[in-house]
């Protein structure tokens, strides 16, 4: 329990650091991009939008830093993330709302599949050391983990999209359709997400397989595995209950940490496929210097990663009784 409380504390503290970072960065940058931005948009935006930018970037120096910070926190708490410049006059939150499901679907599903599949293959590979699984797969996946996500995406577009016309490779859904909950629309979405998903899967699964395999091999050398053999337990039971159950523990936190990397990969993959999820939004925001949107996206992504880590910690507490011991 204390372990969880400590982790929750870390969660809150890190969140606070990111929020503050978000707040401070534009104000710290040399040359104050805000002024340049204001100049750029001065004639083209109405006063409300300008005000939004001011608040986001702290241009209005009539307020002290502390009260600006207070206003910023207040805005965050009430869900007022500002107005997007790229998609003016839409608010940032509505823009995000339109894209978040696609990214959650793509990244979430891919990560889970990669984790489960990768872990299983890693377990089996380590269990049958010297078998074909173990000698073939590691070198292959070692190389695939060094391949850039987006390049794999480009290859997939080339082969399966352009040459073979098997899958669509642009956007999250056919732009002529309007989003709805109908089966045909959902089917369309799934169709459009196959290539990006494969790109993400192929590059991230290698890492899982290898780390699981390595921890599994170390675990198999432990005395309690020998003891399990001595007890005459069936092979599968030893592999899963004694070896895998222990081998997976150090990997859980690694899993959570790496969601950060996966998110990064997702940004690039979405860009390559013009897949209108959060990653694509981020790049668009970048191009049009849409600071409110950028800040909000960054914060959102960080929160997502932090939640993933907290979840992994909870699962660790459930699976590892030693963490429940009072220190």
């Amino acid at each position, binding site marked *: 329990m204390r372990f969880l409380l400590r982790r929750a504390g870390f969660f809150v503290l890190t969140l606070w650091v990111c929020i503050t970072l978000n707040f401070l960065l534009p104000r710290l940058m040399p040359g104050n991009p805000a002024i340049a931005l204001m100049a750029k948009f001065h004639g083209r935006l109405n006063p409300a939008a300008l005000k939004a930018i001011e608040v986001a970037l702290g241009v209005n120096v009539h307020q002290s830093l502390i009260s600006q910070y207070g206003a910023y926190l207040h805005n965050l708490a009430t869900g007022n993330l500002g107005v997007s410049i790229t998609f003016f006059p839409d608010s940032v939150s509505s823009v995000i709302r339109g894209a978040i499901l696609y990214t959650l679907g793509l990244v979430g599903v891919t990560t889970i599949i990669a984790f489960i599949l990768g872990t299983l293959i890693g377990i089996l590979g380590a269990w049958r050391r010297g078998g074909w699984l173990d000698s073939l797969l590691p070198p292959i996946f070692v190389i695939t983990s060094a391949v850039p996500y987006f390049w794999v995406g480009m290859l997939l577009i080339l082969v399966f999209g352009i040459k073979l016309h098997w899958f669509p490779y642009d956007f999250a859904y056919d732009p002529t359709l309007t989003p709805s909950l109908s089966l045909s629309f959902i089917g369309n979405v799934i169709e459009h997400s196959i290539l990006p998903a494969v790109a993400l899967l192929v590059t991230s699964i290698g890492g899982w397989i290898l780390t699981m395999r390595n921890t599994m091999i170390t675990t198999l*050398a*432990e*005395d*309690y595995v*020998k*003891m*399990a*053999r*001595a*007890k*005459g*337990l*069936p*092979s599968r*039971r030893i592999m899963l*209950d*004694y070896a895998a*159950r*222990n081998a997976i*523990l150090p990997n859980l936190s690694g899993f959570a940490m790496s969601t950060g990397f996966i998110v990064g990969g997702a940004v690039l993959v979405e860009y390559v496929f013009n897949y209108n999820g959060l990653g694509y939004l981020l790049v668009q925001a970048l191009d049009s210097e849409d600071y409110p949107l950028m800040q909000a996206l960054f914060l959102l992504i960080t929160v997502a990663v932090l939640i993933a880590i907290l979840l992994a910690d909870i699962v660790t507490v459930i*699976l*590892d*009784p*030693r963490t429940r*011991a009072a220190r």
Partner: protein
Amino acid sequence: MRTGQAERLDPGWGEQAGGPVLQVRDLSVCYHTKRGDVLAVDNVSFDLARGEFLGIVGESGCGKSTLLFGIAQLLSPPAAITGGSVRFEGTNLVDLGDRQLATIRWKKISLVMQSAMNALNPVKTIGAQFTDAMRAHGVTGRQEIADRSAEVLRMVGIDPQHLRSYPHQLSGGMRQRSMIAMALLFTPDLVIMDEPTSALDVVAQRSLMIQIKELQQRLGFAVIFVTHDMSLVSHFSDRLMVMYAGQVAELGATRRVFDNPRHPYSAGLLEAFPSIRGPKVDLTGIPGSPPDLARPPAGCRFAPRCPIVVDACRQEPVDLRHLGDVLVRCIRADGNGVVPGD
């Protein structure tokens, strides 16, 4: 090949009804390493009678643990049995496949390891690990499992409520005893113990040994007890085997070996102990270190460190010889004990 060594290898015990429970003949275990093959266990043979307590002593690296796991068919690569047989109640374990071995494991032969903290699965409760073993051998009734688990824990003096505890929640001594309790779930014929007391303090060691001996006499199982602590095991063992560099150096009834060691190595070991009673004597150690088993010396393996070595010792490998009712691997040992100092 020295398979010619007599079938009735061991003097003394073994003439009981039913024959010996374990017969090891010329067992050899080899580690295949990049530096070459290392023969960690070299043609070891001995018999074990029903209910007998055999202590195997030797320094680290002499092969005693390897011998133990070789007997139990629990070796992992790069170690492998390269010769010999292990007959348990008539069946050669070396020939058996995994599935056949599984029926014998734990029901007839069980294992106690050195560190319970490492030998018990840290993420399962003690009770769950007991249940595992019982379910694997056809005991499925929940009540039956619960009753038997509680019963064995009580046998070693632990409150059965600890079945719900995880290994890290128990003290060292309790962990060790629960491991022993687990080993007795099916009242096996043979319990193999690999230095079970080494991780404990002196007081706990002794009480654990007493408990083991008491259980052994009550339930009648045979014990092979591997340790480097000769003095501790000699209080409890029926016979003592001294190993050196992968070979049996001396084997015989405990009292004989302890009171009157024939092999210079055994003698050296005993002289290294101070005695609590008796006159103060200077401790003497054994200079040098064990040979590199990848390239064992040509003659007697103990020759480089032996206080009574002569040229003949270095010429040829030495066989085990009967000396009264003790087996000794030394050409200079005679009926009255090792020739005293030069």
